[in-house]
């Protein structure tokens, strides 16, 4: 659903020559661009859009959960490519970095480890179908309304009012985020931190008698703390007449023999 929304919205903005920038949607000067290049861009867009929608559909229809997770990765990747077409390079790269590179790796990790049996999960499918269809219809209507209207988001100035900006997308996004939207940004960060702490404290249950090795103690171990070399008289003292150096050696040799 979200993938479909993305494609629709992006297609809409892309058609109007609008591109995604830090502060909002800014009209971009595209008239100078050759129509052939625009056509190539559209071909690329349709390819990625088709793959995105197909893979998003596969996520919910394939039987194997590992395949579903991999299709989700493909969907993320395609939407990142479509964002790149809109010159939102920061968002595209961060989508790949965070979702594909980190979140989905952990998802796969868990899905592969758990060996989920999908049959019980599919049992209630028919029962939930009306609810699902209702939500889908609701979202589709909302999408249609948003995409067909000219007001993208309430509160934003109309696209044409803002002058086109030449500076780098990443830089602009950073500046806006840390000046205009500083409080929402910090609050979002705090909420995420709370969520992390809550998740850890909910799931971490220490067994009563934990017997795990402590690597931080192990790596600082020196030979002296574990082994003590003791000089001791050998059982039969060396024959008299040996040279001093040799007798030292034989003592060492005796110790080795004992350990054997």
């Amino acid at each position, binding site marked *: 659903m979200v993938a479909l929304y993305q494609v629709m919205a992006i297609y809409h903005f892309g058609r109007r020559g609008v591109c995604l920038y830090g502060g909002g949607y800014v009209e971009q000067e595209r008239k100078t661009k050759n129509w*052939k*290049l625009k056509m*190539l861009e559209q071909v690329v867009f349709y390819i990625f859009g088709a793959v995105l929608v197909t893979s998003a559909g596969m996520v919910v229809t394939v039987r194997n959960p*590992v395949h579903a997770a*991999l299709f989700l*990765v493909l969907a993320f990747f395609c939407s990142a490519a479509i964002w790149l077409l809109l010159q939102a*390079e*920061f968002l595209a*790269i*961060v989508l*790949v*970095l965070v979702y*594909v*590179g*980190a979140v989905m*790796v*952990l998802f*796969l*990790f868990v899905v*592969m*480890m758990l060996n989920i049996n999908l049959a019980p999960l599919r049992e209630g499918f028919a029962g939930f179908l009306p609810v699902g269809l209702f939500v889908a219809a609701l979202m589709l209507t909302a999408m249609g309304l948003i995409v067909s209207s000219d007001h993208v988001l309430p509160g934003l100035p109309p696209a044409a009012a803002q002058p086109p900006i030449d500076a*780098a*997308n*990443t*830089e602009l996004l950073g500046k806006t985020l840390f000046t205009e939207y500083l409080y929402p940004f910090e609050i979002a960060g705090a909420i995420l931190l709370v969520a992390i702490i809550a998740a850890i404290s909910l799931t971490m249950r220490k067994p009563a008698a934990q017997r*795990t*090795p402590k*690597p*931080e103690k*192990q*790596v600082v171990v020196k030979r002296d703390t574990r082994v003590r070399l003791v000089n001791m008289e050998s059982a039969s003292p060396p024959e008299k007449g040996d040279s001093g150096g040799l007798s030292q050696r034989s003592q060492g040799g005796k110790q080795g023999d004992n350990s054997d």
Partner: protein
Amino acid sequence: MFEYLFDAIRDGILAPVVAMVAPAGYESYTLYTLETLVKILAILIPLLLSVLYLTYAERRIIGLIQCRIGPNRVGFFGRRVWGLGQPIADAVKLLFKEIIIPTGANKRLFIIAPLLSVAPSLAAWAVVPFDDTLVLADINAGLLYILALTSLAVYGVIIAGWASNSKYAFLGAMRSAAQIVAYEIAMGFALVCVLIAAGSLNLGEIISSQSGSILHWFWLPLLPIFLVYFISGVAETNRAPFDVAEGESEIVAGFHVEYGGMAFSIFFMAEYANMILISVLTAVLFCGGWLSPFQGLPLIGAIPYISEPSILWLLIKTSVFLFLFLWFRATFPRYRYDQIMRLGWKVFLPITIVWIVVIAGMVVARVPPWFS
């Protein structure tokens, strides 16, 4: 020098061909596409040759370190040239071996996995600047692009481990996934430090902001980060002493135990291409990239060529870091898994977070000579 070469290729070879075959009106786009393709080949062919001979260098250098001889037999035309023909013989052997797909394996994913492993390690080279002007894609978010692509490399390993339907392969994949995620975070924070110090995400600008002398390079103000980044790079490429994903003595060969022939050698190629990439990036981010180490010195700095920036300096620095990779492998025993996790999460991550604050303070205070 290289620009003239590319211009000559474009004007002399590509343009006449394009004029003949391209449909009317599309000449400039066809030419641009072909030109980019030539540039990609100009990066990839030397890269793959380096991968080929890095395997030879590894065997010879580790042989020397361990008082062995190493491969010295295979040569050319009946002559042993220090065994320089060895990697080519190995490549030919691997080409002709059969690729065996285990019966229980997931065939498609089994085939895709090596490709997923090698593609990011080659694609990341698009933004690496070899020279002041010699870069394929001079994009503003180059550092982010590199970080995003290096984070994708883990998919090849995970999918290979899962699709093989083998316990050893699966264990290797699980180890690798946890390890790469752990070190990725430290690596990302290390790159944030570089970003704060340079004030740019563009790799070319990061190098330019280090110019001055060897003391102006970022290894000095970012010394702990420099070490963290390189060690994380070693961990990220699954090299010794962090090679638990392969762990010959414990899990046979880890994630690629079921692979043979070219499918195996593509994994191999990806690992070595990643090693070269990490070495180049360390040179670019912390050691001034193409800048000369003799720049700004009183006597040597006056000699032409020696003090001037050039691609040769980048290659020399990269080779030094590659040598470190080989040296580590010959020297250190393999880390135990829980010790690797501890190093990543409990040592590197706090160091990088503390140093982000330190470097931000230095930048704000305009500490000379780096940030004045």
